[in-house]
């Protein structure tokens, strides 16, 4: 199976869907002539032309609003945010309009828009460019939120996202763009709302998603080798809809849980998970639910300190050892 990067996997998904469905268009800042700020859309303008691959002004409220309106009329826009951090400029378009239009119209109007782009810290781009808003997005009924960790998942999930009739928010990671993974040449899709057990273990379940899956897998190797602790890693892949059945089955098997998320801890995805786990698996817990999150502060500009602010393999190991006490 060929090894391609996470970036290429997303590009392949876009190209395949652009080819398959003439209503799919890609819009965003620098997506066409500049081939993408992070080169995700590299070459798409040359292949699909300027009516399918459209550069927009630097105005998220304007072009996301454009995409939301177009999606209501049958177009399937895939909108690129250079950083997900800029979503708040278009908060009304995304979370007031797109999220509610199907409900408000009694099901007459769908909003099959995809908004994608990187949402992560760890690259020394400062507090205003390092937001991870999956918890804020997922708080809104009517939307879907996807945070892929691998090239394989990114491709299969983006294809499903484009075909979905609801707004799907697809949160990528600039640090993962260069990571290679095995991706089949044959077409495949991964359904939204299906978690994936990335590593089977017996002693503790790590529930995680996004780049923290990679950290957790690295930590699990060390924990197995140095501490004899067998860690199971559940990758949520989709935050909403949430595949809680997979989480629950794993927790009932291992009886101990650590949630790892690149999220500010207050009212995060992890808090919701912790509530659901204790509610549904109380009698299966052999210790309190533990959580490792971003340290609660604006993204720190100093690279060495930012590395420690975010979850990393060393912090995951420490957190697992604490949860096993």
């Amino acid at each position, binding site marked *: 199976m060929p090894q391609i990067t996470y970036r290429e996997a997303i590009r392949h998904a876009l190209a395949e869907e652009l080819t398959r469905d003439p209503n799919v268009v890609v819009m965003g800042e620098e997506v066409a002539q500049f081939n993408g700020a992070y080169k995700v859309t590299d070459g798409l303008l040359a292949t699909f032309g300027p009516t399918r691959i459209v550069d927009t002004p630097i105005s998220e409220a304007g072009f996301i609003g454009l995409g939301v309106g177009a999606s209501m009329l049958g177009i399937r826009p895939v909108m690129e945010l250079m950083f997900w951090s800029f979503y708040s400029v278009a908060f009304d378009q995304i979370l007031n309009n797109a999220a509610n239009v199907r409900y408000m119209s009694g099901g007459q109007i769908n909003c099959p828009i995809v908004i994608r782009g990187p949402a992560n810290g760890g690259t020394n781009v400062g507090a205003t460019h390092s937001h991870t808003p999956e918890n804020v997005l997922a708080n809104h009924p009517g939307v879907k939120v996807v945070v892929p960790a691998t090239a394989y998942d990114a491709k299969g999930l983006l294809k499903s996202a484009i075909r979905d009739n609801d707004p799907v928010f697809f949160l990528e990671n600039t640090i993962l763009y260069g990571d290679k993974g095995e991706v089949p040449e044959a077409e495949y899709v991964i359904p939204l709302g299906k978690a994936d057990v990335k590593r089977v273990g017996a002693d503790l379940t790590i529930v995680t998603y996004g780049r923290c899956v990679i950290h957790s897998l690295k930590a699990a190797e060390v924990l197995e080798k140095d501490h004899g602790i067998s860690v199971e890693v559940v990758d949520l892949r989709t935050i909403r809809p949430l595949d809680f059945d997979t989480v629950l089955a794993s927790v009932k098997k291992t009886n101990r849980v650590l949630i790892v998320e690149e999220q500010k801890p207050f009212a995060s995805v992890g808090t919701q998970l912790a509530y659901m786990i204790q509610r549904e698996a109380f009698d*299966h*817990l*052999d210790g309190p639910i533990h959580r490792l999150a971003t340290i609660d502060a604006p993204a720190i500009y100093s690279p060495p300190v930012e590395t420690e602010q975010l979850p990393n393999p060393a912090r995951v190991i420490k957190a697992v050892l604490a949860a096993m006490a």
Partner: protein
Amino acid sequence: MAQFIDMPKLSDTMTVGTLVKWLKKEGDVINAGDMLAEVETDKATMELESFFAGTLLKIFSAAGAQVAIGDPLCAIGKPGEVVAAPAPKTAAPAVATPVAPPAPVAASANVPKPASLPAVPATAPLAPEPAPTVGRVRISPLARKLAAEKKIDVTLVNGSGPGGRIVRADILAAEKNPPATKAGSGSTFTGGALSSRGPVQEERLVPVSTMRGVIAKRMLESTTQIPYVYLDIEMDAGPLLALREQLNTGLEKEGVKLSVNDFILKACADALRRVPAVNASWEATHIRRHGAAHVAFAVAMEDGLITPVIRDAHLKSIFQISTEAKSLGKKAKEKKLVPAEFTGGTFCVSNLGMMGIPKFTAIINPPNAAILAVGTTVTKPVVKNGQIVVGQTLTVTLSCDHRVFDGAVGAQFLGALKTLLESPALLLV
């Protein structure tokens, strides 16, 4: 306008009081100065006096209830006046004990009182559920479920998790090596009629009394926060016993009956004057040196102990100390001490000599910096002038707070104490 009587603060460490019993009932006419009820604090049982005159309109807290300071106990006003129970002033009582509505006085005589605690048959296995308030077992939800499935009594399992929490591994271990049950071990010995003598006691939960709770808290505080050093000294008790005999015989008509403990209290007061560094308290940023030696002594009670204080013992004669100690000891046993009589000690003496204990270590009662544990006088061979003779010895042990003073200072104190007690005439001047 009715007056509400609230639970008063009757001792400096009190947070809740137990309403032992009402001395008046609803409808009674109350004069200012009448005693309304008996209230047990963390140290003593005291009578609650009414400062108001009128009719006792309403009782809000039934006998046996624990009531937080400031919460209403009853209302006094004009006959027929209607009062509603005011909201408790405390946000949440420190000890949540449901307050039963007062039973109608007329009917109560015929209503059988429910036993305060349900009797548990000795042979019945203990339910794995946690006890409602007392003795809650720290156990993970999974371990609790496993224990229930495997019928393991979690109260017998030691927890290896944080804070002693019982976790799955502990239940699995207990399944392999069952802990000794409370009913008895697996021994096959059935000698005689042993089995017919029944259990040691009825299996039951005893609520932690206010005093027990305070003792538990303070002793735990003491042993976890104080760096201890212990010093023993053995002394010749012969002269002391001889002097005591002389005084008690010679002054019998005057009603003098000195105990060994009276001499020790007096000797402590004098030794504190000689080595005043022991008469001190640790206060984190400084050490408080006390000007007066208020010497406390431990008195055993039915459910605990209390330490009445001989105030200004350094200024009192052994006869004054003896009289005062007798009076305080009697009041202590009757739970009649008022807070001023059992607070403010600067040094403490604990004596188990009368129980035959030759020597022991006592736990410091903070904020004291030391406590003296006194053993019994022992008749044994001693060496005097190179000869083995029959002697009478007394061993005392000083528990010291090493933050406040060092071992050498403690040794000086014990040296002074030994000098005084071996030459006890010094205690009479």
